[in-house]
């Protein structure tokens, strides 16, 4: 009689270890989503207004700009780099876009200008990193200072407003109840997801981030891929800049885009992308952005002093990283 009991025990043990094994797999693959769900449920208990549809849409609307920037940051960080210049470049692109808009009177021309300027600054970052062999942190730190300075100089330190009616419609229209920026954010997420997981380019970015030397010895054009990565980051900043500018129909050369790089990096890290590159997911960043959005929203709903919000955000980032380190 002792034997079957023992067997049963052993069986239960294997089942338990299997279950924990499965859980750890689930955790390592989807920890951001689980964390998102926990925070979402907690938030819905803490504030009755949280679940209101308008509030939900509000959250999405608020994260869409940082979200688009974060997607570009994800690609850059997967390649093993970082881009500190996104906030400044966003302001610079915004300023030049409004100037182009006012000068030409054409919304189309403004959008094209925005995309060109953003991609070009990204390309310059890529050039410095890939050809100049400058550490991405340093190269983009320089770009951060330079881009902000040019924005301030061009706009004389102030804000400039659009004079063409219709431009502000980009951010202030909606489809049924979904605002355009949300739709743009979702589309960009889908595109970046496809790019990173279903094309050669994405594969190369992961390879370079994981082992640059082996990638080069596998006959990958590492320098070109890197330049493309930073250019893409710049292009996505342009998209974010267009939304930001259109929202209020003006851009401030001094305050727009301030500290966006920190929020974007935070979202990417919370989303589970490894600082040194090679590992991480686009979907992770998507949920990382949402987590940050919910936190902001909750703190506003609960009347947490804005001066204290940074502390809470910082805490969450650190907790997120500690949990990811566990696996």
């Amino acid at each position, binding site marked *: 009689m002792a034997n079957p009991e023992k067997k049963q025990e052993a069986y239960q043990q294997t089942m338990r270890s299997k279950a924990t094994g499965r859980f750890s797999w689930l955790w390592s693959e989807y920890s951001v989503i689980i964390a998102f769900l926990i925070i979402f449920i907690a938030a819905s208990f803490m504030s009755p207004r949280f679940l209101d549809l308008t509030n939900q849409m509000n959250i999405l609307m608020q994260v869409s700009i940082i979200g688009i920037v974060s997607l570009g940051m994800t690609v850059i960080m997967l390649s093993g780099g970082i881009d500190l210049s996104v906030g400044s470049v966003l302001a610079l692109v915004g300023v030049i876009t409004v100037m182009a808009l006012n000068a030409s009177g054409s919304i189309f021309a403004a959008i094209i200008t925005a995309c060109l300027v953003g991609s070009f600054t990204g390309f310059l970052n890529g050039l410095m990193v890939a050809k100049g062999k400058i550490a991405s942190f340093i190269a983009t730190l320089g770009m951060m200072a330079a881009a902000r300075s040019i924005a301030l100089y061009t706009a004389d330190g102030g804000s400039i407003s659009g004079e063409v009616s219709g431009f502000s419609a980009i951010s202030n229209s909606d489809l049924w109840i979904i605002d355009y920026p949300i739709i743009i954010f979702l589309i960009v997420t889908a595109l970046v997801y496809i790019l990173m997981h279903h094309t*050669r380019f994405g594969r190369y970015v*992961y390879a370079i981030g994981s082992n640059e030397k*082996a990638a080069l010895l*596998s006959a990958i054009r590492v320098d070109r891929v890197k330049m493309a990565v930073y250019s893409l980051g710049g292009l996505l900043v342009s998209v974010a800049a267009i939304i930001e500018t259109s929202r209020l129909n003006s851009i401030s050369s001094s305050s727009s885009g301030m500290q966006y790089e920190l929020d974007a990096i935070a979202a990417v890290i919370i989303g589970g992308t490894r600082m040194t590159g090679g590992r991480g997911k686009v979907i992770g960043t998507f949920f990382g952005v949402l987590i940050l959005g919910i936190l902001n929203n909750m703190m506003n709903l609960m009347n947490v002093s804005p001066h204290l919000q940074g502390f809470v955000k910082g805490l969450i980032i650190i907790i997120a990283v500690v949990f990811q380190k566990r696996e």
Partner: protein
Amino acid sequence: MSTNSFMAMEGIDKSFHHVPVLQDVFFEVNYGEIHALLGENGAGKSTLMNILGGIHQPDKGSIHINGSEVEMTDPRVSQDYGISFIHQELNVVSDLRVYENMFLGAELRNKWGFVKVEQMCQQTKDVLARLGVDIDPKEYVRNLDTSYKQLIEISKALLRNATLIIMDEPTTALADHEVGRLFELMKNLKKSGVSIIYISHKLKEIQEVCDRYTVLRDGKMVGSGHMQEQKLDTITNLMIGKSVSEERFLQHHTLGPTTLEVSHLTSPGFFTDIDFTVRKGEIAGFTGLAGDGRTELFESLFGFRKKYTGEIKIGGKTVRIDHPKKALKAGLGLVPKDRKENAIIKDLNVIHNMSLSSMGHFEKTGFVREKAEKQRFEFYKDKLNIKVQNPRLTIDKLSGGNQQKVVIAKWLEVDTDIIIFDNPTQGIDVGAKREIYQDIIELAEQGKGVIVLSSEVPELLKVCHTLYVMYQGEIAATFKGEEATEDEMMRYATGTKKEAVTVG
């Protein structure tokens, strides 16, 4: 055991994962002698030294120091007995001063916790004077020659009162005049009663400086004696043994026209004036000892290094290769050495590692077709006998041999005319080694030009049509595969014998 013995290891046995690495090894070092420890790669030299250094524990056997039995349970214990290990890679911090390096981790401090700079400088000076050199203790190490860096390591050992210093291949990074300086120093040390264990491949140097030798082969002690009483040839024979040369893998296919022609290839500091040709279906082997420049030569050929002069012709056309991608287009493939650093992408899964260099084969309207990749992988899995449960797991879950097969599959998929294998059997087991050499032969039979780089001559002898021995960046000798013998090749590789390359 002689009465003069300082350290003796007796009956040492050691296995890793049931593979015996050392069997009943006896090794003895006397007071104030320089003792050469010889053997080919994998003979067990480093394992023996790691046991002496307290890094590994022997399965059986005993260690005696000054006649009494000791147990080296820990590297620290070994240091306390006065044993100091100077590794091949020097552990000095270039951005610190000489005396700071000397006392790193053991700084002298006063009761307030401040470092006693003057006292450390004085002690450093004393030790350096004992070695007969005059450097300012406050000089930055980065401003010194490599040989002085070596010297700092040795001084460090002396500061900790080392009575036995182990030097692992100390001369690989040194120029000729620096080697002379090191030898002077070793002789001075010997006079002051310090014993030295000297590990090296370069027999000529050993003859110059060592008193006695011990030879290991396949984990066994096969010979020991006084240096002066032996000829170098006898020692070489002891190292390689008579029985090692197994059967040659037979190759009866005929060779095609010349596919790769390299002339006057030079890269200062690495290799000079390299000429060779490879025909279709030929397997060319390159060997040499550390510092021979063969890896740099083929990395240059592959476009990983750009600073070289000379001409490369592939299929009769002159090509200029400054990027691996261009090498691939010209028809060159490279399976690099040091798999972990150079070949595998550990965050990508097995299939993605296989397809990385030939993504074009799996694309349709710009998107990667994972199904096609999977099918192709199944093909290579059968062909190369890759053992993998789930190819969607990251490649670092595989054993070394299987990882290497995936890397080979990657280059087979690219299908270049010429393929270079740098140390293809590094760190993999015997069975997989054999399979990999069979794959290499099959490639040659298909009419590809194959180049194999290896430090293990017996392996090359088994598969190559032509053998090139390199010594300090030059091709020292060329052999036909069936005419070459290992000891003859070793003589050229160690620089014992040198002659102009015979043409044709």
